[in-house]
């Protein structure tokens, strides 16, 4: 199974957003953002796109499958 790595925390902090603000922007709960940052949750394509737009970084740089 592919190893999942998530660099969301870095990009979120670069953008100056809190987990709560990002969660509100992409329409999920803060807990989901937490799980995403810990790479414990594999997001849907829609959520990945929404996050990528919110933090202003390409999807493949935020979510990495090795």
């Amino acid at each position, binding site marked *: 199974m592919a190893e999942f790595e998530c660099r969301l925390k870095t990009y979120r902090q670069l953008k100056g957003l809190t987990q709560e603000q990002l969660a509100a922007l992409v329409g*999920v709960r803060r*807990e*989901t953002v937490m799980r995403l940052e810990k790479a414990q949750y594999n997001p849907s394509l829609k959520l990945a796109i929404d996050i990528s737009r919110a933090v202003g970084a390409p999807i493949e740089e935020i979510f990495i499958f090795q």
Partner: protein
Amino acid sequence: MKKNSTKLLAACGIFCVLALLASAWYATAFNGGRLVGPMDLGSYSFTPKDLPMLLSIVLTCLYVLALFLLLLRRAGEARREAADTARRVNPKLGLLGLLGFLGFAGFWSYPARGDVTPFVFFLFFGFFGFFYEGRMSGTFMDERFRENAVRAQLTAYKITFRITLIALVVLCQGRLFGSLEHTLIAAIIVLSLTLALGIFLPEYLLYCYDHGSQAEEGGE
């Protein structure tokens, strides 16, 4: 619903009731109680004195219809609003699970009256799931929540069906305690308990999946 429209609605209702009372009084006093007391509507012929009563009846019917339509619309709106959040449940409803202990009454009722229905009360043990549903009550249902809910439901069904199958295989092997009656009673008990598990487990598992490692999570 806005306060003003509620007031308007209440005022219309009061007006309709007053109109109905006034026209009923008029019909009783000046129209021989037509359309108020029992009458044969098959031979009804219109007289101008019936007009107040007819108008107030039509007005009241329209009001009731409008009220009904408004309630329907409001219910639709409430359902749409609730679609994004988990349903609101008081965790105290979990106490209903205690009713499951009534199932033990079957061990008294069967020998005394040959009645096996109390065993079905074991189903109520499933209501302990309200403790967990209550804790998740009103939670915004994002994609992870929905995913977890489906996973919890599937896992619960798998476990329930496995237990049911194993129990049925064991029970169908032969007579339990040398009696077919006892085997059937055991089947009722097992089915009730597995169904209770099927009600309880999805809520419990959803709670576990959602709060799994929250202790190690830190907010920002």
